[in-house]
């Protein structure tokens, strides 16, 4: 298990297109720069989508955990 100090947890399981990335993008603005947001997803595509989104939005993926069908992604707000 990752030991990040999570400031915001976002449950994106089962959301319809295109809400997962839109919600993550909006929500990360609610935490201070340097803070960590955890997203919980069940979409296998999230494994590639979130790193791509983090790169283009200038944020950092700290960790990705896979737990059965659930995926936990830890994102640090960088700017």
């Amino acid at each position, binding site marked *: 298990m990752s030991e990040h100090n999570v400031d915001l947890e976002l449950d994106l399981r089962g959301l319809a297109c295109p809400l997962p990335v839109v919600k993550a993008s909006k929500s990360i603005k609610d935490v201070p720069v340097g803070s960590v947001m955890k997203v919980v997803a069940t979409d296998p595509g999230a494994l590639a989508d979130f790193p791509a989104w983090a*790169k283009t939005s200038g944020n950092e993926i700290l960790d990705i955990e896979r737990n059965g069908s659930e995926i936990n992604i830890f994102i640090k707000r960088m700017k």
Partner: protein
Amino acid sequence: MAVSISEQVRDLLKEKMNRQLLYYLDICARCGICKDACHIYRATGRVEHVPSYRAEVLRRVYNKYLAPLGRLRRDYGEVTEEDLQKMYEAAFTCTGCRRCMVYCPFGIDITWLISMEKAVLSSFGRVPEELSMLADAAVEKGKSIELYREIMAEQIKSYEPELRARTGMPEASIPIGEKGARVLYVALAGIHSILPAAIIFNLAGEDWTLSMFEAANYGYFSGETSKAAEIAKRIVDEAEALGVKEVVITECGHAFRVMKYLAGGWLKRDLPFRVRSIFQPFAEYLRDGRLKVHTQITEPVTYHDPCQLGRNGGVYEEPREIIKTICTDFREMTPNREKNWCCGGGGGLVAQTDLENYRAETGRLKAEQIKATGAKTVATPCENCRLQLALLNERYDLGVTITAVTDMLVEAVAVPAAKGETAEEISR
């Protein structure tokens, strides 16, 4: 010397000008028939929501700089910041449903003009942040996909126990990126878009493989054609590398239209595979007896034609064929098919979270249509439509269930789910 806004718009218009655009700009008689065909104008009654009016700034630039004798007209002013703002509101509050075109006596495609406005706005960097962000992330994913191939394939394996339970087939699988498969299936982000289709493909004995990419193309909605082309190219390249005969696009409004009718033009080449909407093979499987219906749905069901799949993609009959095979009480909305009312969620509007009240207001005619059918379930293939219909369900107190057609088909042909094991429940 700095280029003025007018000159920049004029130059772009000159560069993009073709016979179709010229015809649309020249021929509009401002008869106003399009206003009565527009669900937005019918709901708000505001002049800026008259379809032909949405292209007014573009038309003014054309008339001033490019039309014969335009330079002699002193009443055509320069394009200002305020005009760009008007153009932005016109372009990004239209769902692109093209119902106005069906009713226009000259057949003018106003969404073509709106696409041009989006190209102009994109050249000034004025694109809704959400749409541009989604497009950028998709382009980036295409560049780095090899890094994630194995981990995605491993993750997908975790859904196979459910697949095997619902098919009753111990060998059922979700192949990903498999060379030589006949069909490449392109889903949307989310296991809810993968697992139900995987159940059907396995039951029908299809030779298929799953795409690494999602079908949605937000570069298309933002009007950033170069990004839209790159996003589509990821799937075209994948299909070519795998050597598939057919690309099947999941239940989605715009993705089928983009791949079938637009991608080849953007990439300037013919695509070496057939493109079909998921309903086309699924209807065939039912027709050919490759799927056996064991449970029929008896409560009243209606079908909403997504504008992008129906009016703009030509797929009307196959989803109806599937629904009529598995439901005993199918009720059409009136009007339907090419004259169907837009739900108000298209054009990327559902991704723009600040437009929720606008979407609720402009979906009024759709809500009335649904109510009039008396249906308890509304089936529709587009996820943007489903999000919008969920909003209308709540705001207009419709009391209906909104579902994908494939989810209904799975309930009719697959092994009944044990509690807590449906694709939907897994993903929630």
